[in-house]
């Protein structure tokens, strides 16, 4: 039985890790092409989740649409609108500050995060309260004693893995991916080779933010509840995961995401005062890791530029 309970924690940890990894990959992509940290990334995730919820409510009021179609529409809404938002952020807030001190980019994205968070709180109907998120995936479950395997979790894990594999293939096998990698490696050389720098930056921001939108929907489906503050939390953890894995490396970000989820799961199980202090523990770990290895457990891909 003990083993089964352990297996249950692993399954939960995997779900958590998948979400962290998706967010961390976004941070790493942005850092790769522009050497900036987009601190509003977590709040983009929140906005994505709320966009999906609004889509659901809109479609549901029409009626007569199967839940699969509703889910697809929600995903499309979240991914497309957040991709667009990401490109807009890059175009109007991040790119204009390229010649300014890096601190200004950091501040402007932090403040943008506040704007997004507060906008959801104030302008979404009763946005200050947690909102129930529909469970649209089949919830069939198989129980083995302490271990419950749910079909929806399996689907989400598979979908998350598929997205990450697709991203990996895109980066390594397509011309667009080549251009993104070129820009990440050396902006000047990429430009002389005929890469449209600005376009590539915008596309990269769109891709990263679309991933956040996807993660937002996943978060909603997993917890069946979303609130305006969740992005701040996920953003900090996702950024920490990206740092732990070494900023600029996609694999590192994914590993970092799962590592973080593992740490948190172990912390929740092993520590006596457990659940009440689980967030305190998570953030204490972030601070401790930064003190121990200031640029991450794995090495940073590019030299530190801020």
């Amino acid at each position: 039985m003990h083993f089964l309970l352990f297996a249950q924690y692993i399954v939960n940890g995997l779900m958590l890790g998948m979400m962290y990894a998706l967010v961390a990959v976004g941070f790493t992509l942005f850092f790769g092409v522009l050497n900036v940290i987009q601190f509003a990334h977590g709040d983009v995730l929140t906005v994505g989740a709320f966009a999906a919820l609004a889509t659901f409510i809109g479609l549901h009021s029409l009626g007569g649409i199967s839940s699969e179609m509703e889910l697809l529409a929600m995903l499309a809404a979240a991914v497309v609108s957040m991709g667009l938002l990401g490109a807009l952020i890059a175009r109007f807030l991040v790119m204009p500050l390229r010649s300014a001190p890096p601190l200004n980019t950091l501040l402007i994205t932090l403040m943008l995060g506040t704007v997004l968070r507060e906008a959801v709180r104030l302008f979404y109907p009763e946005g200050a309260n947690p909102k129930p998120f529909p469970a649209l995936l089949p919830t069939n479950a198989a129980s083995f004693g302490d271990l419950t395997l749910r079909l929806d979790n399996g689907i989400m894990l598979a979908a998350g893995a598929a997205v990450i594999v697709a991203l990996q293939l895109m980066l390594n096998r397509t011309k667009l991916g080549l251009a993104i990698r070129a820009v990440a490696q050396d902006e000047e050389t990429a430009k002389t080779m005929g890469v449209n720098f600005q376009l590539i930056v915008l596309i990269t921001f769109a891709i990263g933010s679309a991933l956040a939108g996807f993660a937002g929907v996943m978060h909603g489906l997993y917890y069946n509840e979303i609130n305006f503050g969740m992005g701040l939390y996920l953003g900090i953890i996702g950024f920490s995961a990206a740092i732990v894995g070494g900023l600029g490396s996609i694999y590192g970000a994914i590993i970092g995401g799962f590592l973080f989820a593992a740490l948190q799961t172990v912390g929740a199980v092993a520590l006596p005062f457990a659940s009440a202090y689980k967030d305190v523990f998570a953030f204490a770990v972030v601070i401790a890791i930064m003190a121990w290895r200031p640029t991450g457990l794995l090495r940073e891909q590019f030299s530190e530029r801020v």
Partner: protein
Amino acid sequence: MWRKPDTPTSLLPGLAALVLLTGYLIALLWVEEQTTVIALLALAIAAAVAAKFLRLTAPVARSFAAHEDALAGFAVAGVIVIVAVFHDDHFAVLLVDTVLLYAVATLGLNIQFGYAGVLNFAGASFFGIGAYTAAVINGNTGIPSLVVLLIGGGMAAVIGLALLLPVLRTRGHYAALVTIAFAILLKTFLEVNNALGGPQGLQVKGMRIFGWSFNDSIELGKNFELSFYLNYFVLSLLLVVAAFVIVRRLERSWVGLNLDALRLDETAAACFGIDIVRWKAVAFLLGNFLIGVAGALYGMMGSFVAPNNYTFADSLILVSMVLLGGMGSTWGMFLGVIIVIVVPEKLQAIEEYRFLLYAGMVILVLLFRPEGLLPRPVRSYFSGWKPQR
């Protein structure tokens, strides 16, 4: 290169600006009608733009640079005049006190952001540490209140010490992450910790000096009663003056020069033999100390502390004050605090939207005027020296 100024700069422009500002603030605190408030705010914006176009700002800035001590004295007099006008109005005096205490906190934050370039996105957390310290000590011991203020500051510095290692070892966005994580950690900790009152927070006993309780109204004669917040006003004003003098001296001394050097280029500063770790630590701890002292007095004045007042969003509001005023600009801090604190209190329509509004405002400032509304003047190495354009 330096040259003697052709004409001695006059005190008058600075004095005129202070008189106008005092009068304006009295008017702003006086009016209640929301449309009048909006009209007054619009007037301020129009006046600022007009002054800019009529080139009236330069003489004022020169006057402030040349006669800073005298003008600082007049500024104190101006604040006293404002409070004298509103002597029996609890709300107005409380508002002035709040501005003064937040000014102390932003002066501390300014040492970190503006001089040393050490990022601290947990300003409200250290403010809260000061306030909670005051709550716990005043509730359980009989330590004199003035000492409690120092302990509050010391506590903020000591807890800052725990963050020192990661802050010193990291730079830029990594350091930002450390302090953000701390801001969230502390708020969560205060919420789940029952010994410190949990989400409901704690009552704080008021200030008491030599048996004189600050929370009693002052009665002079039969019909003349003063708001009890005047007690706190006197102390807050003394704190602001002390903090201002310390920060200003620090900035002008070789310590400030070291801090500037290390902010502008860490590597170059290290090459010139400046001990980076030491000065970063000094800036971080001294800044937190000032924030903690302000927080302790604020806690006693408000007589109540709760985790919800010290969130990450509140820390960002503190940072907005620094950025709006102008990073590194001592006088700018006061402007930033006045804008961020007074305006939402008078204009109730925006109270709910203040986080959104100020975050948006800072974005605009960063895009179009990154040096802030009152930019920090170029360091003046000799008296009468001014940089050539």
